[in-house]
């Protein structure tokens, strides 16, 4: 069996006096599709943001591909990583946000080509060729010249996915990517992600409230509550036969709120 691509060990993180992550540990295998579910404030989004280096950790260690994410060794000491190390580690990881975070002053194709050109020195022609392939894959090739303001939410999110893919990350983080969308636009984004899951061997971590999608998409489901993983297992086990009472309560509430399982 190969080594885990992500190893999280005893992470603690507080916002003020609120402990979001309380000694969280987990492992992710290469190519694994993970769904992180749980009530809001349970720490599932925070762990994605920590992996993307958008939040700093208070304690613990994270390894990505066997390398420390937040620490570097200097001599015999483990010291906090500098910006250069973080930039190197970020190359392995991409993220798609709940609110798309497209650059409003750049056209669709410029949104996709900007980072490869600036961070990897890819020539414009090559970057645009790759961008068109990706836009085609997410069904947005005909909007390449549009500005983000001319797109629907679902279209924006598909462009954001193409933009993240343009850097060819090994790990993709999806943070409630359909939560801000009108119901009728959710499916077009989920379809893109289904294809990604089937056609690539990328490791994917997904924070979602779409339980039906999580069930079909994930190899493994983690249920978060109060900064810890309460229960984890195969989608069928978690959704059909949850063992922990907190998982059962959460799923009951979600179903009552009208989400499909």
């Amino acid at each position, binding site marked *: 069996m190969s080594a885990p691509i992500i190893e999280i060990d005893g992470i603690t993180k507080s916002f003020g006096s609120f402990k979001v992550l309380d000694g969280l540990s987990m492992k992710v295998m290469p190519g694994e599709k993970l769904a992180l579910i749980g009530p809001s404030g349970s720490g599932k989004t925070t762990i994605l943001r920590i992996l*993307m*280096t*958008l939040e700093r950790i208070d304690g613990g260690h994270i390894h990505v591909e066997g390398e420390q994410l937040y620490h570097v060794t200097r001599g015999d000491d483990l010291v906090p990583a500098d*910006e250069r190390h973080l*930039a190197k580690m*970020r*190359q392995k990881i*991409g*993220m798609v*946000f709940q*609110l798309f*975070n*497209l*650059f*409003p*002053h750049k*056209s669709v194709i410029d949104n996709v080509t*900007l*980072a490869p050109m*600036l*961070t990897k020195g890819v020539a414009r022609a090559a970057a645009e060729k790759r961008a068109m392939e990706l836009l085609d894959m997410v069904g947005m090739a005909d909007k390449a010249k549009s*500005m*983000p*303001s*001319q797109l629907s939410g679902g279209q924006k999110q598909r462009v954001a996915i193409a*933009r*993240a893919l343009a*850097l060819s990350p090994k790990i993709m983080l999806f943070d409630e990517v359909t939560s801000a969308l009108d119901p009728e636009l959710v499916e077009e984004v989920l379809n893109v992600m289904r294809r990604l899951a089937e056609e690539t061997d990328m490791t994917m971590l997904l924070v979602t409230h779409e339980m039906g999608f999580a069930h079909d998409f994930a190899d493994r489901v983690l249920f978060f509550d109060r900064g810890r993983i309460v229960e984890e297992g195969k989608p069928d086990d978690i959704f059909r036969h949850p063992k922990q009472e907190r998982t059962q309560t959460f799923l009951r509430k979600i179903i009552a709120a009208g989400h499909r399982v």
Partner: protein
Amino acid sequence: MDNWSGYLGLILQGAVVTVQLTLMGSALALVMAFLAGLGRLSRFFAVRAIATAYIEFFRGTSIFVQLFWAYFVLPFMGISLTPLQAGVLALGLNVGAYGAEVVRGAIQSIGKEQYEACVALNLGRWQCMRHIILPQALLLMLPTFGNNAIELLKATAVVSLISLADMTFQAQVVRAQTGNTLIPFATILVLYFLMALCISWAVRGLERRMARGLDGVRAT
């Protein structure tokens, strides 16, 4: 007023000086605004302190006094400036201090999510600033920059106090020579107004061009 076309010529010569002062002063003000505005947001305390000191000093003291310093006091320190240089320096530094706060405010008003997208795409701090934040912030700065440029135009009249022959200075010359107060001052009133109008139009045009296709920053 038998020789009025000659007097008008004098005032127009002054108008050229006023335009020169406005353009050069605005250019210096723009540079100072970005230097000090970005300086206020620096990671380094020393840079922030210098930028803050500059802004507070030049906003907090009178432009008259600054001009007199540039022209009359600096020579005692071995720096002699021509009236035009002193005028551009005082105007540029003074208005640049106001502009710096505009730059800082506009940059800070760009949402956190744009910075986070930069991090997720692994852009460096400066790449993010240059390609993502500044282009959006610039649009927010423009209207206030237009205000500042008009303020600077009107403030150029103070250089007549260090005997630089700008429009106001020439109007006083004409008044002294003809004894007529209404015509020269009415003339420069109209000319100042037309110049300010030009700045307004230019800035608005620029704003429209930059706002094309943009949302999130501001719908136009």
